């Protein structure tokens, strides 16, 4: 299958295949009035409806190179139930007679493709990787809007993606990428309202952990990447839910650069120092992200605040396991979710990094589904000491939540995998749900609603055990436990690459030297962390690399 165009479907139509016929003037339309057009895919330039109107209802499909969902052609094709893509960007221009297929992937994305590229007459060559590369780097360089959002306007085929991943990260591109990341990161930090926890001194441990990432990641990444390239790890991690989430991938790059920024702010590092290390880590993150996301985007916000990394067959399997929620089921689901969320926050030292929402995935009936992963509930690749002897019922859980998108006026999943909706009661809108347990050996277990309460009870026991352990710790132990929580961030990737034992996971002496002065002091930590990443005069959070 070779994708040759993308557009906006006028409605959620079923896949249709037919032969291309160009219509350029009314005489073309009149000449076809008495033809059998059911297998004809008409291609037109603009979105007026009258041009095709005498034959519109009999066409197999329509490709319009201009227009929006509000164009007349979109309105009338929907009335006729004739598959139609408007605003179609063609990367190849099929000739009359070429066999093409139209497919509405979701409410906003439709594709045109050749089932068999070899059989298709084509007049224009497919853009070279160089073209895609140039446009992709243009995307990286664009500043975006006031919160760093920018439309991702590059059609990236699997071959293009391979080409992008294989590119060398030159000095210029490294700086472009760091600036892109900084512009994406700063608004998220600015919008975040709180860095407080009753149990964990958050700013001390966040500062120490990101600084330790800067001190250690280049060496760790080199070991992992040599054993298994980042892109291969990314491909493996996108095959199923419940694995190292996109958030941990995100942290691999962003936390590392946050540590660099803190050190610059403290006067311990110049922006032009350790460039090769920065290149090593940022390039690892870049390849890992591209391979995991699979669509050429780097961030949820540039993908319309979505992350649809799971393959369609996996989503279909998960969605097939959902059941309509009655009042009792809805109540049990809310209780389970609240319990697991509370436990996950504690397990990850009052942080959200154990939870990740992916999607929304569009279902054939138009409803949407998100998959909420609770990543690690017991002993895991993270090797946290406080979890070593826990015995939760499952290593992880995934909640499959289906809802009517019309219930929300706004629906966004940010780069941290947190869903923001308007109205804000997501679970109240969920009509169908499934709960999937991830067994330690990787097997997925569908949990019936009557089993949800048992899981809730068992997790409550684990919650108490972990809480007791943290409560027994003094301040220093809590700070370094939480630091370790974050600095173990590359462990899941090392686990996939099979090199966990070849990496030094200890906290760097350079990091330890920053405790207790200044990072035992909450105010100093807040000043360093805050001014480094938010309260600076740069357009983004991160300093240029050159």
């Amino acid at each position, binding site marked *: 299958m070779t994708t040759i165009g993308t557009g906006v479907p006028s409605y959620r139509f079923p896949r249709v295949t037919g032969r291309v016929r160009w219509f350029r003037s009314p005489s073309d339309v009149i000449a076809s009035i008495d033809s059998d057009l059911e297998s004809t895919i008409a291609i037109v330039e603009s979105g007026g409806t*009258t041009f095709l109107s005498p034959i519109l*209802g009999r066409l197999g499909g329509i490709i319009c190179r201009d*227009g929006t969902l509000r164009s007349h052609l979109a309105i009338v094709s929907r009335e006729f139930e004739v598959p139609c893509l408007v605003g179609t960007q063609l990367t190849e221009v099929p000739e009359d007679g070429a066999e093409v297929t139209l497919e509405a992937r979701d409410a906003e994305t439709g594709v045109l493709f050749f089932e068999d590229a070899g059989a298709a007459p084509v007049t224009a060559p497919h853009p070279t990787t160089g073209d895609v590369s140039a446009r992709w780097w243009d995307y990286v360089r664009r500043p975006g809007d006031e919160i760093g959002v920018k439309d991702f306007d590059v059609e990236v085929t699997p071959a293009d993606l391979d080409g992008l991943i294989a590119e060398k990260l030159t000095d210029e591109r490294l700086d472009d990428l760091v600036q892109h990341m900084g512009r994406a990161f700063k608004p998220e930090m600015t919008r975040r309202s709180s860095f407080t926890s009753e149990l964990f001194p958050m700013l001390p441990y966040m500062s120490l952990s990101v600084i330790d990432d800067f001190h250690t990641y280049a060496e760790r990444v080199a070991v992992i990447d040599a054993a298994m390239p980042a892109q291969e790890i990314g491909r493996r991690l996108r095959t199923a839910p419940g694995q190292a989430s996109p958030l941990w991938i995100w942290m691999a790059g962003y936390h590392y650069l946050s540590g660099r920024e803190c050190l610059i702010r403290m006067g311990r590092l110049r922006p032009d120092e350790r460039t090769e290390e920065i290149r090593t880590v940022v390039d690892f993150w870049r390849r890992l992200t591209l391979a995991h996301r699979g669509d050429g985007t780097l961030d949820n916000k540039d993908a319309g605040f979505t992350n649809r990394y799971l393959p369609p067959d996996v989503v279909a399997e998960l969605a097939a396991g959902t059941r309509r929620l009655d009042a009792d089921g809805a109540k049990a689901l809310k209780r389970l979710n609240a319990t697991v969320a509370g436990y996950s926050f504690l397990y990850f030292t009052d942080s959200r990094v154990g939870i990740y929402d992916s999607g929304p995935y569009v279902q054939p009936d138009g409803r949407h589904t998100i998959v909420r992963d609770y990543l690690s509930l017991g002993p895991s690749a993270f090797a946290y000491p406080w979890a070593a002897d826990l015995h939760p019922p499952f290593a992880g859980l995934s909640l499959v939540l289906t809802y009517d998108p019309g219930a929300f006026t706004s629906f966004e999943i940010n780069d941290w995998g947190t869903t923001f909706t308007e109205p804000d009661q997501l679970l109240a809108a969920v009509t169908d749900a499934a709960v999937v347990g991830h067994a330690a050996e990787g097997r997925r277990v569908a949990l019936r609603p009557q089993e949800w309460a048992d899981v809730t009870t068992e997790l409550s026991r684990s919650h108490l055990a972990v809480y007791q352990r943290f409560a027994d710790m003094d301040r220093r132990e809590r700070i370094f436990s939480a630091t370790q929580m974050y600095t173990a961030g590359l462990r899941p990737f090392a686990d996939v690459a099979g090199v966990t034992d070849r990496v030094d996971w200890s906290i760097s002496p350079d990091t330890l030297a920053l405790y207790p002065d200044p990072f035992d002091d909450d105010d100093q930590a807040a000043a360093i962390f805050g001014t480094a990443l938010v309260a600076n005069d740069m357009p983004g959070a991160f300093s240029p690399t050159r």
Partner: protein
Amino acid sequence: MTVSLATPTDLRALYTDASYEPSLEEWNWLVHKAGAAYKSELSRRTVFESELFGMNTYILMSMMEDYLQVPARLRAIRQHATPTSLVVDDLPIGNKRSFINLAAMPLHYLTGRELFVDLGEIDLADGLEDQLEVMRFWREATIAARTDGVLFNMDADPPDSSHVVGESLMAEIRGRLLPADDELKTAIRKFGARLTAYAFLENCDARTAVCDTGPYVLEDGSFLALRETCTDADGDFPWVDGVRETLPFHHFVIAHRLPGSVRMDNNVWGTAWFTPSDYQADILETRVFCTDDGTLRPLGAGEIEAATKAIRSAHRALYQRLAETDPEERNLYATQMYAWKLKPWARLAGCYDEIDWTVTPRIAESYARFSDPDLALQLIGGVFVPQDRDGCFRPLGGAERW
């Protein structure tokens, strides 16, 4: 000079009391509100072109023609009837004086004003009395037409809805609805699609003959959506001569009752969007009505089938005719189509023949200039999606900005 955008203190009077004369500040508040909604809607469309009709060109010409002609025509109509009487004396749905026609009246006229200003032919201070004439007619007629106590769809309850049907007519419609089995839904969908496509063609690729009102929310959470589609029955459009006579019916209302899980958003000029977009599978009850004689007559399955076939034949004939028409002539048809929005009002008022409907010669001749697609796009873009203001229109009375 700027104009304040403070919300008027007595919105109730502004929205519902036809005898109340708004101040210039209040008129400007309405102009700004309309312009912002218009810009918001237009900025979501990228295409104003068609292989058959040069849409940007005829939009320019017709809206400038509106600016030149509409005030005098409205004064002529007022000599015979008030806007209120013209609305209340007839069925509120299923005729060419529909909500979309009424909503377009000030939007098109004020677009024409913007174009003349941008072309340097008038100043912002010019023509205030003419402008208020148009605004007054629109406001009075809208107050009479709407049953929801607002002037714009975005202010209605629910937001982005319009309501023109009163209780007794609503009861009559609901009493005639039929359960929507698959066979009926398919038949009505095909009829609706065929009719919509024909209406677009007859109106030169404009949607002015297809008007949505609703959602009319019902007591059980479901809602009624009404789509009026009116073809030319009276001889307004000469390019339909000989074709209109082949249609058995001309004015239609299609009613659907839909579940609350479907969302209907009705924009500022009365075009509805449904979520999910393939809402037709969710229709609970439905019916096609004919309103040719000023009453609501439900059509049977045989009549719908006959109408569908007739519309299809008429469509072919009209398409053939338009395709063979010289592009400049075609463009004149389209200019007339938009510029003749007052014809059905004049017919009802009884003064159709008193009005000279000829397109102003200088406007007809401007085709030579405005058929340049780049110039047309530049001028239209400057009004529809202006970069220097948040709405399409500048204040009335001479101020340059809000």
